[in-house]
């Protein structure tokens, strides 16, 4: 909100300048029948340049031709498919979660909180998590503005406003991109232990995670969390690699890598954003007591017994199902 207000105030007085590194096209252009600015379209000219099969998305430039058509097709995919439909994915997820929340409500701790806590995540693990969350949110928001600004913002708030936002978002996204790589490595190191799949996970799948009732067993992380972890890691690698390629285009020698990168990057990013929304739901309003582990490093014993019974038994050496004994046997 604050940022929006901050943008809105100066917008009235704004004037657009060419970017600092732009070349002024007027300079050095001779008078004459030039079409350097491209404002006269001549289909003939373009037909002479063009070659290849327009139906093949990633065809090589055919012999003797100046350019390929993949650029055009990439444009089609990006404009007609990704820009138009991909943005709906997070919206749909939010809708589904809202419906789920209205029907099922938050998952409460059965028997309430015990008031006793056990440690779950160290400080550095918590910081690694929130660091990733912060960087992810910044990249997600700026990325979505780059991707969807023209369809979501421009029609309502004007092209000029969108171009300002897009410039800001692009610079922000470029700067934070490499930071994401660092966040990903750190997150991986801190959370990989306990996130390998195990047999108990099968049962978790059969019981649909207990989201629709029933008790599920799990160790430090349940199947849902493990899947989320690996989605973040693998998706993150995909996004990072494609992002870095876009950021440093000279790394690849074929423009089609770049085109592929933008598409995979957008798919991966928006896909991960959609799942992240689900993750955030479960972490906050969806499940009582979850957020404690990330805010305090400790969770309530009853939460642990309910959601991570096997882990609870490993850590405390007590049984997760035995009735609570108030005093420890001497």
């Amino acid at each position, binding site marked *: 909100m604050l940022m929006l207000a901050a943008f809105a105030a100066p917008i009235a007085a704004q004037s657009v300048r060419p970017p600092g590194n732009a070349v002024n096209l007027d300079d050095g252009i001779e008078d004459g029948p030039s079409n350097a600015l491209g404002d006269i379209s001549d289909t003939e000219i373009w037909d002479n340049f063009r070659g290849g099969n327009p139906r093949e998305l990633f065809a090589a430039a055919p012999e003797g031709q100046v350019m390929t058509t993949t650029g055009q097709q990439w444009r089609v995919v990006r404009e007609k498919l990704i820009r138009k439909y991909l943005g709906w994915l997070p919206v749909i997820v939010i809708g589904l979660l809202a419906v789920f929340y209205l029907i099922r409500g938050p998952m409460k701790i059965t028997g309430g909180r015990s008031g006793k806590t056990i440690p779950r995540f160290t400080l550095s693990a918590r910081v690694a998590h929130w660091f990733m969350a912060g960087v992810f949110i910044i990249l997600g928001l700026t990325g979505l503005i780059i991707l969807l600004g023209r369809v979501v913002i421009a029609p309502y708030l004007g092209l000029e406003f969108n171009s300002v936002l897009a410039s800001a978002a692009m610079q922000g996204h470029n700067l934070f991109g490499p930071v994401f790589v660092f966040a990903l490595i750190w997150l991986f190191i801190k959370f990989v232990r306990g996130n390998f799949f195990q047999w108990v996970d099968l049962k978790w799948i059969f019981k649909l995670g207990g989201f629709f009732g029933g008790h599920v067993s799990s160790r430090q992380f349940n199947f849902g969390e493990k899947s989320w972890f690996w989605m973040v890691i693998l998706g993150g690698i995909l996004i990072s690699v494609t992002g870095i390629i876009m950021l440093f285009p000279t790394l690849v020698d074929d423009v089609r890598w770049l085109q592929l990168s933008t598409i995979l990057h957008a798919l991966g990013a928006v896909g991960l954003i959609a799942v992240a929304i689900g993750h955030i739901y479960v972490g906050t309003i969806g499940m009582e007591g979850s957020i404690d582990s990330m805010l305090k490093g*400790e969770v309530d014993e009853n939460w642990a017994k309910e959601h991570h019974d096997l882990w609870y038994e490993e850590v405390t050496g007590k049984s997760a199902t035995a009735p609570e004994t108030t005093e420890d046997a001497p």
Partner: protein
Amino acid sequence: MSFLNFVEGPLFTFAAAVFVLAALWRLIGIIRIGRTKDISPPKGSAAVGFIKGNLRHFIPRGIFAKRTMVHLVGGYGFHLGLFVLVFFGVYHIDFLNERILGFSWPALPRWAFLLTSAIAFSGLIMLWVRRISDPVMRLISDKDDHIGSWLTFLVMLSGCFALEQAHDSLRATHMLLVDIWLIYFPFSRLMHGFTFFLSRGQSGATYGRKGIDL
């Protein structure tokens, strides 16, 4: 006058004046409280202790380093990064040169500026998320801590958003936030950037006088 001219001109002048005057007022106010003269025979030098105290606390202590690693990395990354950005970023040098100082010095190349920004941002984010994710930090933090972190973050973020230098509105936003930051600074805990030398120095002097080498 355009909005950009306003935030770069009169508002900046005002903010800078508030910054300088209020910070001085506060520092002098603290010093003026004074200390009663210590008449016990000294075992060492208070003045040397003042300087030593200031220098010693720059260097983390090995045996605590592991427990406080996140803080050390975040803290040093952020502060050194910010210092370098503010004083060696070409935009900032130009601004200081044109508006205040009238001379300039070599700036960082663009890639180094971006790298430093990334480090400073990472540091600040680490420091703040540490603040919200630990019981000790949650207990001792107050509004001022959060406002200070966020205001600084927004200044940096708006600066980063303005990197293309193509839109005056983005420059003006950065400048506006810089102005607000300058005004907020002397009345808040951001002042630690100046008061640290008093605090380290005075405890250093107390210890130094007793001949203790901490």
